[in-house]
């Protein structure tokens, strides 16, 4: 059962990267996350939104959809674009792989999303767009502690 959700539509402007981070950390606040968890969520959403701006829409204007769902202490984040899509997903997710080295991209976006979230799924259709779905359990450690105590 989804207890709360958020749906946000923003144009692919780089100013909106910080907006997306603020909105997601405010939404997650209801779970009373740790500072580290907030920082994990901020970086993950920042990576996905930045990718939509730079890669999906190739710095042209398009719409980015950000969805967040809360079930118990599980937060699911979706970042959706209707941009160019990804031809080879496996290659795209490799650390250091980038198709835009001339823009000083580090190729670490997907690697960061994977290491700071519990689960990352990517669906992409070339010419149609990409959906990045990420899940993170909030307050994992707190829960374990209260069970033990």
């Amino acid at each position, binding site marked *: 059962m989804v207890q709360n959700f958020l749906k946000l539509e923003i144009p692919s402007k780089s100013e909106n990267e910080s907006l997306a981070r603020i909105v997601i950390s405010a939404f997650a606040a209801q779970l009373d996350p740790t500072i580290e968890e907030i920082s994990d969520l901020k*970086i993950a959403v920042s990576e996905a939104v930045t990718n939509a701006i730079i890669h999906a829409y190739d710095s042209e204007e398009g719409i980015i959809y950000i969805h967040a769902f809360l079930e118990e202490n599980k937060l699911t984040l979706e970042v959706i674009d209707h941009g160019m899509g990804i031809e080879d997903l496996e290659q795209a997710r490799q650390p250091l792989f980038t198709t835009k080295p001339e823009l000083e*991209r580090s190729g670490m976006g997907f690697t960061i999303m994977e290491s700071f979230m519990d689960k990352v799924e990517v669906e992409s259709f070339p010419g149609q767009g990409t959906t990045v779905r990420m899940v993170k359990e909030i307050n994992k450690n707190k829960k374990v502690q209260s069970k033990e105590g």
Partner: protein
Amino acid sequence: MEIELKLVRKNLIVRLKGELDHHTASCFREEVEREFEKEIAQNLVLNLGELTFMDSSGLGVILGRYRRITEKGGKVVVTNMQPQVERLYSLSGLQKIIPHYRREEEALRNL
């Protein structure tokens, strides 16, 4: 993001305040490039003490400066890293190529 620049001998100290992401990366890049074009500074000391957020775009722009500066025989070091930034730094492998010091003075002594 706020950028504070200070030249100490041949070392350009850059203090970053705020958030380093794709949106603010170009401002950082331009400021640093402009200073190095004057050909006075040789090395870059990057103080990240007041950086509240950084993502892979920050890694990319730091790595970009590293490439440009080392090409000309200069060095790049970072100082005052916060725990969040440090996690990113070790995950990316940047720590293997860019030395990290606790304080600016310590970095300056080692340049």
